[in-house]
């Protein structure tokens, strides 16, 4: 899309991308546009405006080639709040089991008049691949171990909501960094907005050369807890433990689980995030998950407004560029 396609003189920075595939490469201004739009929706919602008409007449397709409950529900509800029609597709019981490729599935759904696709896939790069075959705008709802941009945005939104700004904060991402698309989106978004990011986990779950993404590496949660403003506890994905990344869940929790003792050694205003679904007693103990520092349910609430922001911004960009 050419820059000249958005001649509007509107003062705030504009969003003019046709797709949201990741937070890598987004500018601080672009990230802020999304966060501010989400904040507007949250205010409107608090004021009782629960149904808006930004996407009236638009059909959004939710294509989930990998199971998801929370993200899919959140996107579906976000589209409905904006008055869109939605088409849901999940991999189980679909034509994929009859041998159809995911590209053909997406093209068929597009042929039904869908102009915005929300895509979740177990293969990194699959949403990017789809953009080569579709005219519709694509929002990545999580691809393999690559990115999960709306989760990264809702984490950042939640932090900003509680701390006012991102720049200058120290944020720890704890756990399975190697397999985490949430970690990558958080790293790109947070570092672009000026936060210091520490990735913390067993050496087997820290991918090679990750320091080149501008993060610090730690293998000791105890060592970093006292100097961290935000601790984001990534899920240990049992299904990914194909080979021995650590000796046992018990040993993992001992070294990398967030518990009451560690919270006491943390800053008084530390924020505890978890993208979930959480394993109580593994990444964090129930007293921490339900404690004063936890903003886990705020994340879920904010996810809705972030997804509304992304859907509406992408739709407006398409309208401006005449692709609609």
């Amino acid at each position, binding site marked *: 899309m050419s820059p000249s396609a958005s001649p509007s003189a509107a003062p705030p920075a504009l969003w003019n991308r046709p797709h949201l595939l990741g937070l890598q490469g987004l500018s601080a201004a672009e990230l802020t546009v999304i966060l501010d739009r989400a904040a507007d929706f949250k205010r409107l919602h608090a004021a009782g405006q629960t149904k808006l008409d930004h996407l009236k007449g638009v059909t959004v397709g939710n294509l989930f080639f990998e199971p998801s409950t929370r993200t899919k529900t959140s996107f579906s509800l976000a589209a409905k709040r904006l008055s869109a029609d939605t088409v849901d597709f999940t991999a189980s019981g679909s034509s994929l089991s009859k041998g159809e*490729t*995911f590209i053909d599935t997406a093209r068929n759904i597009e042929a039904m008049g869908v102009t915005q696709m929300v895509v979740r896939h177990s293969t*990194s790069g699959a949403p990017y691949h789809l953009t080569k075959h579709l005219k519709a705008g694509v929002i990545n709802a999580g*691809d393999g171990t690559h990115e999960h941009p709306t989760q990264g945005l809702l984490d950042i939104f939640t932090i900003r909501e509680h701390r006012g700004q991102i720049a200058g904060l120290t944020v720890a991402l704890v756990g399975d960094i190697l397999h985490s698309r949430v970690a*990558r989106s958080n790293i790109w978004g947070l570092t672009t907005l000026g936060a210091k990011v520490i990735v913390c986990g067993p050496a087997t779950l820290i*991918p090679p*050369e*990750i320091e080149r993404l501008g993060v610090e590496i730690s293998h000791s949660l105890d060592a970093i807890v006292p100097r961290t403003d935000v601790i984001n506890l990534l899920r240990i994905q049992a299904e990914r433990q*194909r080979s021995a990344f650590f000796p046992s869940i018990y040993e993992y929790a001992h070294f990398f689980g967030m518990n009451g003792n560690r919270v006491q050694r943390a800053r008084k205003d530390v924020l505890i995030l978890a993208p979930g679904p959480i394993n109580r007693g593994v990444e964090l103990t129930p007293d921490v998950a339900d404690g004063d520092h936890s903003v886990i349910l705020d994340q879920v609430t904010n996810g809705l407004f972030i997804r509304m922001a992304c859907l509406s911004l992408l739709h407006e960009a398409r309208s401006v560029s005449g692709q609609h």
Partner: protein
Amino acid sequence: MSSLLIRGGRVIDPSRELDRVGDVIVRDGRIAEIGSNLGQADEILDATGCIVCAGFIDTHVGVRDPGFEEDETTATATAAALAGGFTRIAALPDTLPVVDNAAAAEYVVLQAKRAGNCRVYPLGAVTRNHAGEELADLGQLARSGAVAFTDSNFPIASAEIMRRALEYARMFDRPIFVHPQDPTLTAGGVMHEGYYSTALGLRGMPAAAEEIMVSRDIALAELTGGRIHLMSISTQGAVEQVRRAKQRGIKVTCDVTPHHLVLTDADMQKYDANYKVRPPLRTEEHVRALIDGLVDGTVDAISADHQPWASEKKDRELDQVPFGIVGLETLLPLCVKTLVEPGRLSWLQLISKLTTGPARILGWTEAGMLATGVSADVTVIDPTASWTVDPAKFRSKSRNTPFGGWTMQGQVKAVVIGGEIRFRVTEV
């Protein structure tokens, strides 16, 4: 029989360091004379401004016939080979059925005869059905024309099987070709392990996976006295190990592909299956080591490692698509671009990597050269002709290449096999 005069070209023959303008006369299918102003013949091929050299040899080509004719057939593979300047190719045995017995090898020879394009030599499997468990019929394969043994892209995980294969193959004076990678370190991998695999969230295959197997196989070659050839090496560590092994007199040879010289792991940012190759595209540092290896002679040959795949197999999720790209028709200009233009190899050196080098790997003494009396397998190249790669025009049945749209110099103008012009670019 008839005679052919290849007139006025720059005749290059690395086997005797020959590089001068002249004529080549072919009689009865063999090179009769090389010199100046050699007079007349029944047929004349004007090579003015062109390079005249022995036909290229590729020691491992995915021909896919029988069993995977949706990807390639012997007819299309050999047509692609001719267009790329190759007069001889050795066909990988990873077909269906696998070439692990005499009948299968004879089928390869028969199909090549039917196609009537370039010469095709079967490679026989090392183990039955490429399963890595029991030896294939190596002796009968050799007798049926197999010029070497390989389990194609399947690593031979058992050092014991590898040792026995090297010992047994010695009786027939055939090398074992290996694709060196430790399967436990590469399982599920899509690309080189490093910064880009981390950023892209794609499972990596570390350089160590290759270096471990290179080290093991060199040790086994030393133990057994067998000949080992490492296909498509891609790492600095592999080049260094081969260099040391050669200095110690161990019978090891190796080749590299053009794509491992031109592309890097950064290209995977396109999430394009046409960059998914095995071994994976590495970093600049590894690329430099491969080129240094070509320059100092550690790397004996360049192979396209031609791996055709029908489009329905490549246009899928990146972790599900097979490895490899087609390469026979783009090898020459890629080599010119990476090796000749920057001055790393002379034309004579480049041609040695495509003729005498592969011939030496296979133990061939009368191929890959322009000596008087040898079979007239000749390739004529226009070194300065610029052309744009258009995959739709490939003679190969498959189009899985990352080089579509690239404009490069160096074009094959004609190919002669046994004195007969089998390929010729017709000027429009």
